[in-house]
Each structure stands twice: as structure tokens, then as C-alpha cells.
């Protein structure tokens, strides 16, 4: 059950649980997604993909008689490879040809593009395209990839080390003196992001505009445009990217795919519209890979459980290439910078390696590295708590940054803006009913019930901007976020933003922001987004940034628009500018008021009534916004999980789940609840179900959703959400980014709960997902160990 909140504003502005405007079409199945687009003469693309993880291409034979419908790298000579460069020292860039040329580096890599009237016929062509390979030895595991003499994914690198990130610190003294020392080896599985809608693209060349028009399921149409123009050698003005309704992104749609470049090239080459609609097998086996971390951790603490230092060796399996724009540097560099989480301690050392393997590129997934590092440090803190004989939550209270220290610069120079972290833990402890759970556990001998409780605390940097990203040196650095606000002649409001809404409910929440400023009813506010021709440039939707950045930009644009309306209104009220104010959609003067609709009518249709000194910019304002500090907002949460473990079959059932979340001031708490619930469902997948295994030859072993296990309605419990609302001191309304947050906590909370349930057996699970097989194997091992 979702907890209802009292909102300060009983209306439809900020704080209101306004039903989502976009749901009218989504819930009726009337959304318009890429695959719904029908164009005359549309050709379908299927790709011939590499069946091998590492091989040299000796030759490609196109199907006889259909050579003109099949294209290889030899045909795409004018296309540049995708290069996502990071400026971090030692980073090794990779050039990803959109179609493989000399060699293939992972199963599923594109080798030939096949076009036909239907997808089935295009797949027939792909099946009839014969690729001759010389097999090369495969590296499918990070540890093997680091051994001397390992096969090289990119020969020119000289090794497989993509990036080494080191947070320096000297822990030698602590290692000798710390009263408590706890070490753990932990691993998280490679996963596949699984939005309901996969990737898809429709490309066409429009002669009249002289433009390549690409409809793509994208979170960041402006970035795709830049990347496409670079690969195709086109002026950006020749490229228009439209992202229509999109069925979930989660990071997977924040990447320029080679498939998009190929489709764009084909549309221009053939002069016909073409489309590629990703199928589930392509998504699982070739594309949507994410999250594979290995940790060797040591915590040093005093006898109370106060953390003195943390030492970590981490490895991230980065796969074969760096994807555009984030590059494969994001995940490993994040590990080193965010592992300390919301905790305060004095000594830290972390070396994080990104290692290339013959697997698909690792992509940023909701929470990016956070789900992994939160799991790592929370499991470690539980181990500290056991070592000092305390409740895990007590150890967290001891180590969390206290509210009186806010704002706080942590050991990796992250600037925590605001919040009461310990209070979130106290509320979670009360809500989950810890005392009752401990009493139930004490009855285990009578009932046979094996339950466990786990807590996870984390904070999440969101909406971080220029000062954070320029240092990464990636092709995309967010600056001022812009929005346009335009009054229509009848007094409605059109907002234009460069971010994209694909589940976030921005058509509603940004209308609420505009209402808060201008007083125009949200129903009269329309949001234009997802089209590079119609919206201001933006890096798009990623990094939990829309509420803060687009919300701030819309507010700024609406304020500026209000100022212009005030000038016109003052004239119409025959008073001076200084004596009018904007309230509830009207310009109010000392002796009367005039509505925004009338002001719009005069500007557009009765300009004879305008003052001579009217702002010629009119009722159409584009303005940019940055928060007072661009180091990001830090939302935070404490998740509490109560599980029941069936030790006979290794099954884990979630009995109860509580999220205490602080996202600052909430624009629409109902949308925030939805974000948390959806994220938590994905986190449950990370904790218990989702895994993309590979064999030693780099073959992906889950090629359908029968093998890749996603949580469904029966696996997600009724999650209880408790909101705290500590405003960020730096943002427009005090809002914080929370879009990714829900996905971060569950792996840690659930793992800690399972370990709690098994602790009397001396069993701890150190690998995600916690499958029945892993639990049974650990129990077997413990039994064999003579316990």
C-alpha cells in the first residue's frame, strides 16, 4: 500500500497527486511508439550478427541474386566508427565500426545489414549471408582477461585494461591497528535492461527539408543527433531526431546504437524509409548488457562498529566497446567515487578496474554503479555489525553523516546537499517492525520459519552538471538546461523541453510546475518534447535530472513569460508595471485584473493595444537554468526487507518491504511513488532473478525471457513508501532527483535479509542474484563443512 501524504497545496500545482495526463492514451493502448509508425515503401532491416565472441572475418558472401539488399562494412566506407572517448587519465578508447570489418569482438556484433519488404524476409537474407571466420581465443571473464598472455580484445591496447581508477589512501596503519577487520568477496551478475519496448528506429530522407529524419526510441534525441551527424559526416542541420512515445528507457535508450547509424545510412543510400525494430533476442544477447561488478572489500572498524577505513579492489566487466556518449568509463569510475555511500569515515582506498572482454558493451542502467556499490558496502556493514555484536541498523546510525553536518563534503569530495539520513533508518526500523521480527526469529525452533530482515541506506546524486561532467571528458557535458514557454493565442501554454519523458510523467509534472508559476490549469498546458527540430538542445533524460533541471528551466521560462505578461497587463489595466502582480493566471492591478488569455489575445490579435515599449520577444520565452550549485542533489533512502527463506528449496519470499525516501520537495508524490515502485521491482530483479550468463566461449546463455528471469507481479510485494521531504537548498523548489533511486536499495536490503535468515547456519551469500541454486550450494557447502 502506498502511504498517502498530506500535501501543502490542495490544488494541482507542486505537491499535488495529480493523475498523469499521459495515462489517458497509454492506458487505452493509444500511445504512438516507433513500431507504430507506418510509412509507404518502408523496408525492414534484419542484421546478420556474429555467432562467435572473438574471430577474424575472412570473408562475407552475400546471398546470390540479392547482393543489392545486403550491406557490409565494405559498403559503408563513408561511415565513421562510433567512438566514445573519456578524458580520464589512462582511458583507452575503442572504435566500434557500425558493421564489423576485420574482426568481431562479441556474439551479436553486427556484420551485415539486410533489407527486405518484411522482417521475416530480411531475416531470411541474414540467414543466407555466409560469414567465414577464423576463430580467436575468447576472454569472457575479467580475471582471465587480466592474466598475462590473455587474448586481447583490442590488440592495439597491449592489454585488456580499459581504465584504472584509483582513490588513493593509506590503510597500512589501520590494517595493523584496527580492532575489527572484516573482508568479503562479492559479485553482481551481468544483467540485461528490459524495458517493455525494445530499441527501434525508423529512418527516412526528406528531400524537401534536405534532412535525414530519424524516429528513434531514445532518451536523448539531441545527443543521438550529434552522434549520428559525426558518424555519417553530416551537418547537424541535416539531421532531425524524433523520439515519440517510448516504453521505458532505464539507460538503455541513452545510447547511440550502431543499428541507428546503419538505418540512417540505408535510408539515405536507398532513398526509401527503413526501420529496425529490435526483438527480444537481440536485446538480451547482443545489446542491453549492464552491471557486472566484482569486489574484494575490507572494512576496518572500532569495537563499537564505527567505520575507520574502507579498502576495495573492484573490477567491472566492461565488454568489448565503449558506447556513445557515456563510454565504458562511467561504471568503473563511479564505483570508486560512490562506494563510500552516505557514510562518514576517514580512510579510504579503492582501485577499480574496467576490463574489456568478448561480451557486449556494458551500458549504464538505472542507478548505474550504485546498485552494485550499495550492495557491496551494506553487506560489508552487516558483517561489521555481526563482528561487533550489534544490530546492523545501529552500525549504520553510528556511521551515517548526521543532519547537523549538512551540507557535507565526503571523502571522495561529493557534496551532500541536505537531509537527515539517520532518521530515514529509524523510520524504516519502526515501519518494518524490527522488534517483532527478532521475537519471531526467536521462535524459529517452534515454528520452523526462517525469516530475516535487512536494511540498506544510500544516497543518490542526481542532476549533477557541468562541474562534475566536464572532468570526465565524455562527448556530452550538461550545461544550462533550457525550456521554452509560449502562450498560445487563446491563453493556453506550450512548453518545449529537450529532455524526454518515457515513463517519468513529465507531461504532468512539468505542467504542475508551470501552474505553480503562472496559474494556468495543467489541462491547458501541453508539453512538446522528443524532437530536435522543436525543442531546445538538451543532453536529455538521464542521471535523475529532469525534475531538477527541466523543472527548474520550465519555472524560469514561465517566470520570464509572466514578467512579459505583466508589462502588457499593466498597460491594459491602465496602471504601471510596478503596481501589478501575477496571481492565479491573472495580472492583478490595484483596481482590477486581466487574464493571461486576454493578454495573449492582445499580443497576437490586437497588437494595436500594446504599449510602445512592449518586449518584442512577445509571449514566447526560451531561457536556461542551472541550480545554485551544479554538484547535484542527493536524495537518499533506507530500504527495509523482510524475507522468508525456504532452505529446503532455496526459495526467497519477500514478506514485507518498506522504503523511506527523501526526494526533497516532491512535485507530484504519486509520480514519485510510481518511480520508486518501478525501480524497486527492477532492484528485486537484480537481487533475486536477473542474470545473463555466458559460457567460456562468450556465448550468452539466456536468449529468451524463459531463461532471463524477470520479476513479475507475483514477485513484487506490496511495497510501503514513507516520504520525508528535506528540500535541497540549491534547486528551484527544493526538489531532488529520485528517478533511479528505487532500483538501488533492493539488492542490498534483500541480500542482507537473506544473510540474516541464514546466519545461524553460518551461511552468507556473496553473489547476486540470490538464486535457489546459489542458496542450496551455500547450504551444501556449510553442511559439508561439518556444521
Amino acid at each position, binding site marked *: 500500500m502506498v502511504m498517502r501524504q498530506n500535501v501543502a497545496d490542495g490544488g494541482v500545482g507542486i505537491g499535488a497527486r495529480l493523475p498523469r495526463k499521459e495515462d489517458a492514451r497509454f492506458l487505452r493502448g493509444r500511445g504512438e511508439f516507433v513500431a507504430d509508425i507506418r510509412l509507404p515503401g518502408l523496408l525492414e532491416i534484419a542484421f546478420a550478427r556474429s555467432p562467435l565472441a572473438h574471430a577474424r572475418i575472412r570473408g562475407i558472401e552475400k546471398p546470390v541474386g540479392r547482393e543489392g539488399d545486403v550491406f557490409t562494412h565494405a559498403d559503408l566506407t563513408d561511415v565513421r566508427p562510433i567512438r566514445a572517448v573519456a578524458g580520464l587519465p589512462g582511458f583507452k578508447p575503442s572504435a566500434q565500426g557500425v558493421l564489423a570489418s576485420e574482426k568481431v569482438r562479441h556474439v551479436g556484433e553486427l556484420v551485415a545489414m539486410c533489407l527486405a519488404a*518484411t*522482417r*521475416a524476409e530480411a*531475416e*531470411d537474407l541474414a*540467414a543466407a549471408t555466409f560469414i567465414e571466420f577464423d576463430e580467436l581465443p575468447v576472454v569472457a571473464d575479467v580475471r582471465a582477461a587480466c592474466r598475462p598472455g590473455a587474448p586481447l580484445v583490442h590488440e592495439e591496447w597491449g592489454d585488456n585494461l580499459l581504465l584504472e581508477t584509483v582513490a588513493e589512501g593509506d590503510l597500512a596503519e589501520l590494517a595493523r591497528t584496527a580492532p575489527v577487520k572484516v573482508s568479503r568477496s562479492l559479485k553482481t551478475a551481468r544483467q540485461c535492461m528490459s524495458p517493455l519496448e525494445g530499441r527501434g528506429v525508423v529512418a527516412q530522407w526528406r528531400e524537401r527539408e534536405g534532412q535525414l529524419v530519424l524516429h528513434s526510441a531514445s532518451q536523448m534525441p539531441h545527443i543521438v543527433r550529434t552522434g549520428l551527424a559525426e558518424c555519417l559526416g553530416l551537418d547537424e542541420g541535416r539531421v532531425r531526431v524524433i523520439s515519440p512515445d517510448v516504453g521505458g528507457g532505464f539507460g538503455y535508450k541513452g545510447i547511440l546504437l550502431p543499428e541507428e547509424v546503419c538505418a540512417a545510412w540505408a535510408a539515405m543510400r536507398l532513398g526509401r524509409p527503413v526501420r529496425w525494430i529490435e*526483438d*527480444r*533476442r537481440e536485446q538480451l544477447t547482443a545489446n542491453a548488457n549492464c552491471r557486472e561488478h566484482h569486489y574484494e572489500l575490507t572494512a576496518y572498524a572500532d569495537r563499537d562498529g564505527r567505520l575507520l577505513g574502507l579498502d576495495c579492489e573492484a573490477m567491472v566487466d566492461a565488454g568489448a566497446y565503449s558506447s556513445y556518449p557515456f563510454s565504458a568509463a562511467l561504471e568503473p569510475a563511479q564505483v570508486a567515487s560512490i562506494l563510500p555511500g552516505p557514510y562518514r569515515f576517514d580512510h579510504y582506498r579503492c582501485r577499480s578496474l574496467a576490463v574489456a572482454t568478448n561480451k557486449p558493451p556494458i551500458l549504464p542502467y538505472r542507478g548505474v554503479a550504485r546498485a552494485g556499490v550499495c550492495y557491496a558496502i551494506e553487506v560489508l556493514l552487516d558483517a561489521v555489525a555481526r563482528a561487533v555484536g550489534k544490530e546492523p541498523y545501529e552500525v549504520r546510525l553510528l556511521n551515517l553523516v548526521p543532519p547537523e553536518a549538512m551540507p557535507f563534503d565526503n571523502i571522495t569530495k561529493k557534496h551532500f546537499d541536505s537531509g537527515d539520513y539517520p532518521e530515514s533508518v529509524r523510520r524504516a526500523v519502526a515501519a518494518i517492525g524490527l522488534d517483532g521480527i527478532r521475537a519471531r526469529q526467536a521462535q524459529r525452533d517452534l515454528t520452523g520459519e526462517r525469516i530475516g530482515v535487512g536494511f540498506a541506506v544510500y544516497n543518490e546524486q542526481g542532476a549533477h552538471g557541468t562541474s562534475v561532467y566536464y572532468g570526465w571528458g565524455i562527448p556530452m557535458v550538461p550545461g544550462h538546461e533550457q525550456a521554452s514557454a509560449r502562450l498560445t493565442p487563446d491563453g493556453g501554454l506550450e512548453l518545449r523541453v529537450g529532455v524526454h519523458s518515457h515513463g517519468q510523467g513529465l507531461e504532468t509534472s512539468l505542467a504542475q510546475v508551470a501552474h505553480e508559476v503562472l496559474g494556468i490549469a495543467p489541462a491547458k498546458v501541453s508539453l512538446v518534447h522528443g524532437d530536435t527540430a522543436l525543442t531546445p538542445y538538451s543532453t536529455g533524460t538521464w542521471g535523475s535530472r529532469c525534475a531538477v533541471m527541466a523543472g527548474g528551466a520550465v519555472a524560469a521560462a514561465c517566470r520570464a513569460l509572466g514578467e512579459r505578461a505583466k508589462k502588457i497587463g499593466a498597460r491594459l489595466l491602465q496602471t504601471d508595471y510596478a503596481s501589478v502582480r501575477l496571481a492565479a493566471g491573472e495580472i492583478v492591478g490595484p483596481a482590477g485584473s486581466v487574464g493571461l488569455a486576454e493578454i495573449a489575445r492582445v499580443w497576437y490579435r490586437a497588437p494595436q493595444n500594446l504599449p510602445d515599449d512592449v518586449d518584442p520577444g512577445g509571449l514566447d520565452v526560451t531561457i536556461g537554468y542551472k541550480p545554485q550549485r551544479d554538484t547535484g542533489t542527493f536524495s537518499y533512502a533506507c530500504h527495509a526487507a523482510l524475507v522468508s527463506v525456504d532452505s*529446503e*528449496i532455496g*526459495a526467497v519470499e519477500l514478506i514485507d518491504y518498506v522504503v523511506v525516501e527523501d526526494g526533497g520537495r516532491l512535485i507530484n508524490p504519486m509520480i514519485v511513488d510510481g518511480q520508486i515502485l518501478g525501480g524497486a521491482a527492477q532492484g528485486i530483479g537484480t537481487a533475486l*532473478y536477473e542474470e545473463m550468463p555466458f559460457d567460456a566461449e562468450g556465448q550468452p546463455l539466456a*536468449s*529468451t525471457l*524463459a531463461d532471463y*528471469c524477470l*520479476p*513479475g507481479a*507475483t*514477485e513484487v510485494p506490496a511495497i510501503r513508501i514513507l516520504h520525508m521531504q528535506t528540500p535541497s537548498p540549491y534547486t528551484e523548489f527544493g526538489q531532488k532527483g529520485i528517478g533511479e533511486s528505487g532500483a538501488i536499495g533492493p539488492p542490498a536490503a534483500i541480500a542482507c535479509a537473506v544473510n540474516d535468515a541464514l546466519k545461524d547456519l553460518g551461511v552468507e551469500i556473496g553473489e547476486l542474484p540470490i*538464486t*535457489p*541454486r546459489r542458496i*542450496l*550450494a551455500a547450504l*551444501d557447502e556449510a553442511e559439508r563443512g561439518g556444521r
Partner: protein
Amino acid sequence: MKPAPFAYERPGSLAEACALLAEGGAKLLAGGQSLGPMLNLRLVQPEMLVDLAGLDELKASERLVDGARLGALVTHAQIEDGRAPDPTGGILPRVACGIAYRAIRNRGTVGGSLAHADPAADWLTVLAALGATAIVTGADGERRVPVAEFATGAFETVLGEAEILAAVAIPTVAAGARWGYVKIARKPGEFADAMAAVLRDPERDVERVVVGATHGAPIIVEDFSEAVLAESLARFDPIARRLCRAAVRRALAEADA
């Protein structure tokens, strides 16, 4: 994920369907809930698809003196909803409602499930435990095979090249009989990692345990004993063995409850 080209036939009689099968290279299409994905993944690429949907004789069911005969094209949903005769006192609908998801049950058929012989399919294990008989039609007429002997391995059955599973005959389960059926799966509706069915019918002197979701045909243990079960599971890896034993223990407990 689109099928390779195939010819499509929709015969009007069982004899015609058998004749098409005899030409070779053909696959039968019943509910298509397993075959459809396999075609789309190009895991099977038959020259011809013989769609049984036009054969009303495979959709008919009837009560028999000692049980019921269910046409091969009876869907899981029909059984779940009580729209097919049930001589088992409620066992059939209970099993049916646990098969995959409703959308699959709407189209998936009891005959298609048996003929596909996925080791993790419910009916293969359940109908073997109930002592049902498969009724098979071919050019030479009809033959009857106990469901317990129908599957010869994973995805392999006794069906000949040009034979069609036409119906199953399910015997009446006596009022005093006890039944237990347990599936262990990652999620409700997913393929089971282990399953066991138990029928204990003192009247007919039956004490039968069937273990499904193995790597081959279901394991049938008549006159159940722990020792025999242990022997049947000896070749399994320790975790699979553990799951099978748990399924059997729980099915026995359900039957005893």
C-alpha cells in the same frame, strides 16, 4: 524473430492430416504456445505446418463409464474453467489453472503439450500419475499408449512420423483416493525446476509417484519407496536431486493432508 518460410495446410479430417504428415518435413500445429516461439526463433524450420484447428473431432470430449476422453485440442483454459469433463474430482482443473499464464492457457492444448513432451510440462507428469492413456491415430488406425510410456525422452515421444495424438483417456479417480502435486519454479507460471505428482488410491491398490521436470521422460515410481526414488535420482546433480526430493516430499505431504 520471424519464422523461416513454410507451407501451411489446414486439413479437414484426421486422415488428411496423417496423409500430409506422411509426406515428411511437416510439423503439427495445435495451440502453438511452444511451436510458435520455436518457429520465431528458427529453432525449428519445418517445410510445412499442418494446422489442426479445423479438426472438430480433436476438440470433442466425452464421459466414459470409467473416466473421460478429452480431445487433443481441448485447451488448458477449458479444463480450468470446467468446460471439459473431469473424472478426477477436481484434480484436472486445479492442475490446469497452474499451467503457465492465462494467455497461454487460452490457446495451449492438452494434446499439444503431451506431444511436445517438454519434461517440465504439467500434463506429461500429471496424466502419467493419473494412469491416463494416449489415443494415437495413424494410417493403420488407432493405438493406445499409457501416458507413462508416451514420452521416451526430452521432447521425444512414441509418436511415429505420420501419427497424431487424437485424445487422452483419463480414468476416474475414486472418492477415497489422495492426490498431491507440487511444482518448484522460480516464479508462478514459469517452467518448473522440479515437479512431483502423487496418486494414492487404496481401492485400485495404486501408490504412484511421478517426478517430472527432469532432463528426460518423467520418472515413474510405482509402489513408492524412498529407496527406489533415491536410485532414480542418483544420476542427478546434488541440487537437482535436492529439489526433486523436496517436490516429492511435499507432494506426499499434500496427499496425506
